[in-house]
């Protein structure tokens, strides 16, 4: 009997085009669009050399050569003043350095890049001035000064608490995978509607059959979980092998987390379908709000939302199952320690138990007061 019901429930769920679109096609399309739109986000943080012109009467003088080789921060181009002024006005440069008796830095607007160049030039001029002064007054100490300048001590080294550098794009994809798991709620809802005689004629017909209702429900829910796990497997494979997104090196845990997320999604839908006393359309709308809204709060639309929520309404990070799931992926990716990951998993298991008990209490009803 299990095989018979399972086979037909799998057929019904996979042939339900509306559900399949939202649960399978939509996340794949959304992930592709997100990938296309966001794939440069990480790169934008890389430093680009600041374009600057150098205006000097003697282009091959020692002083010019020294300045041009003094830093990688700036990309110098030799120009005459007219040309440099024109390039500045056309915003091809952020400024130019005029090397006459006093080094002048000519800019048109103030900004971060201009400030960096100004700091560099000040530092350069001070260093050059100091060396020239020592050469003039204490030429015997020149050797040790040069040594000191060449062996600058770095007193601070940046150390990351994370095991990997987080690409901001991953926040979106973790939220997307979590949202897809939660879309299993549509399948759970469908199973809940198809088992309760007071919700559909089809369910009434199934209830009349000589099979224990809880058995039928268990068989049906297992079909929903199987479909959802297959869907999430397809999505993970698509992200990793087609879009080549690196979700981290803990693939097994990522997959197991997704399986747990699928169970959570399906049970959430069953819970909404059985506990809420409202129309099926309204229940569908609630599932959409629950999964899509949850994904938004977990950073699907804007990764800063995740941090804003955590800072201002921390309780929502725990009450939002999509965030728990997305944060579990995040923790797997970012930290060596699995403490934060297991915390999220425990909350998720708590939700699954809660949803299961709520669903069981309602589905086990053998007769209805009204149909």
């Amino acid at each position, binding site marked *: 009997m299990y095989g018979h019901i399972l086979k037909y429930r799998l057929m*019904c769920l996979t*042939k339900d085009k509306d559900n399949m679109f939202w649960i399978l096609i939509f996340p794949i399309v959304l992930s592709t669009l997100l990938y296309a739109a966001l794939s440069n986000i990480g790169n934008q943080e890389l430093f680009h050399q600041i374009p600057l012109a150098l205006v000097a009467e003697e282009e091959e003088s020692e002083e010019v050569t020294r300045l041009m080789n003094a830093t990688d921060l700036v990309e110098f181009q030799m120009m005459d003043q007219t040309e440099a002024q024109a390039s500045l006005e056309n915003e091809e440069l952020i400024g130019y350095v005029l090397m006459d008796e006093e080094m002048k830095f000519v800019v048109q607007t103030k900004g971060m890049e201009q400030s960096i160049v100004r700091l560099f030039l000040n530092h350069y001029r001070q260093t050059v001035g100091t060396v020239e002064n020592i050469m003039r007054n204490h030429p015997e100490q020149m050797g040790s000064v040069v040594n000191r300048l060449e062996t600058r001590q770095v007193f601070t080294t940046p150390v990351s608490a994370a095991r990997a550098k987080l690409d901001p794009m991953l926040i979106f994809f973790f939220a997307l995978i979590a949202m897809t798991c939660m879309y299993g709620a549509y399948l759970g809802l469908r199973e809940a509607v198809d088992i309760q005689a007071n919700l559909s*004629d*089809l369910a009434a017909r199934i209830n009349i*059959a*000589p099979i224990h209702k809880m058995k039928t429900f268990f068989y049906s829910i297992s079909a929903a979980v199987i479909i959802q796990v297959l869907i999430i497997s397809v999505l993970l494979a698509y992200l990793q092998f087609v879009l080549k997104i690196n979700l981290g090196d803990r693939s097994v845990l990522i997959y197991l987390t997704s399986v747990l997320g699928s169970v959570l999604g399906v049970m959430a839908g069953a819970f909404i379908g059985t506990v809420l006393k409202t129309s099926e359309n309204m229940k569908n709308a609630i599932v959409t709000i629950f999964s899509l809204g949850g994904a938004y709060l977990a950073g699907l639309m804007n990764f800063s939302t995740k941090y804003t929520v955590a800072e201002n309404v921390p309780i929502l990070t725990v009450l939002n199952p999509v965030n728990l799931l997305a944060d579990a992926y995040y923790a797997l990716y970012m930290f060596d320690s699995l403490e934060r990951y297991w915390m999220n998993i425990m909350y998720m298991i708590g939700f699954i138990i809660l949803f299961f008990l709520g669903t069981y209490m309602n589905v086990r009803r*053998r*007769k209805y*007061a009204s*149909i």
Partner: protein
Amino acid sequence: MVIKVNNLVKRYGDLVALDHLSFDVREGEIFGLLGPNGSGKTTAINCILSLLSYDKGEIEVFGKPMTPESYEAKRNIGVVMQNVAVFNELTVRENVDYFCGLYVPDKKEKKRLVDEAIAFVGLEKYEKFVPKKLSGGLLRRLNIACGIAHKPKIIILDEPTVAVDPQSRNKILEGIKELNKNGATVIYTSHYMEEVEQICSRIMILDHGKSIASGSKESLKAMIDVGEKISIELYDLEDEQMRSFRKLPNVASVSYEENLLTIHSYKAANNLEHVLEHIKTHNMAFGKIYSEKPTLNDVFLELTGKELRD
């Protein structure tokens, strides 16, 4: 007795849906539950099937109390719901196979029964169609096939012909008679008195959750005083002539509209003969004449004071 309902009471808040309803269904009969919409027919069926809880009363099926766990009884009951209850994603064959499989675990036996059910409702050509590709009538037939495929001993059909074209309706009614001939006991609910008259061997009339009469159609009609309705096509009938018909024996009422004189008579012998004699005596020019026996609607009208179709 395959079903026995005793003193059944079902309330929805202040509304009494079933008011101390008692009846029984005998093996091999087609038992009709006739009543207007909202009279309690479907509620009674849902209580029998243990889908609905009830406030008072007892229900026995095959001599045992009916509960949601009465799997042995359920195995022998087939239900055709008022609304079509099939999976939209499955084909005709898959739908019948699914529901049959809930009752019959043996694959070979199931296949045979599914083939028979599909042939019985005449859907062989549509086996691979999904429900949305079927017309209303074909959909109703699929609904029936899903309910009867496992060859149950009791078949409950709850208004199976609602919104069905006359051709499909006739096919459905003929099919029900055939199922009964093959040994199934049938409970048929409807608000269409013609259908109930046509196929049911015993009828119970329900109104406001109460049984107001039950018996064979003949015995029900015998309960009322109304006799036949005589309609005569008469031209230019004057008031005086119309009044003369009222004086004839056993005439209850007379009306004249658009050249048609309608005489409602009390139950008695020779009513038509008196009328024809009167026409001949007064030399009236007439066209068609026809007489109709009292219907279940007349029974309902006399017992409740309202039309069955209201």
